[in-house]
């Protein structure tokens, strides 16, 4: 089945220790998104790629970066995680219409 796969499902990192989250898709969608979701809240857009064009939301912390080496893969790098960065990170893709989400990576910062 075509899908969006995120790895790992759970990630524990120490305060200030860089971490990378990954996302892959078999849908061949041209748009890929990274969202941050804290409990009981709506997903908050961090970045999106429209093809190779990178779009950074104005309020995304500088601590967060992203890479999309090809159509299928996208990475979220958190350079120096703080306690406030603990959240679910969701990757999503779209072509025309709905978003297709992965099941997320739950990040814990100790």
């Amino acid at each position: 089945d075509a899908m969006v796969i995120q790895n790992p499902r759970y990630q524990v990192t120490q305060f200030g220790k860089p971490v990378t989250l990954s996302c892959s898709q078999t849908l061949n969608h041209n748009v890929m998104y990274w969202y941050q979701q804290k409990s009981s809240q709506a997903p908050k857009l961090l970045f999106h790629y429209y093809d190779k064009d990178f779009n950074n939301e104005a309020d995304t912390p500088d601590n967060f970066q992203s890479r999309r080496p090809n159509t299928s893969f996208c990475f979220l790098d958190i350079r120096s995680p703080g306690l406030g960065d603990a959240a679910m990170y969701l990757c999503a893709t779209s072509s025309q219409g709905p978003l297709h989400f992965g099941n997320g990576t739950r990040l814990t910062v100790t």
Partner: protein
Amino acid sequence: QQQVKQSPQSLIVQKGGISIINCAYENTAFDYFPWYQQFPGKGPALLIAIRPDVSEKKEGRFTISFNKSAKQFSLHIMDSQPGDSATYFCAASRRAVSRDDKIIFGKGTRLHILP
């Protein structure tokens, strides 16, 4: 202009009852209105979506009602079941996603169906 207002924040419904969640949008350029269902520990998944050229769309027990003049749309879950207990997000966007387009989410409704 870019907000989507969703209500209620939480909802408790008896099994077999009708669950109703409402959303209102501001940007008249939006032409695609999906609802996403999210279970704990999972990503949101598309439940049903509507375009403004129709006033209602039904898929099984799930119906979207759309009022273009009022800029409102709602999700109705008929014969609500405990398995419908989840968080529901409405959203709005332009269907033809361009570089500058964003998908705007409502704040979510936590639905609990009593057995």
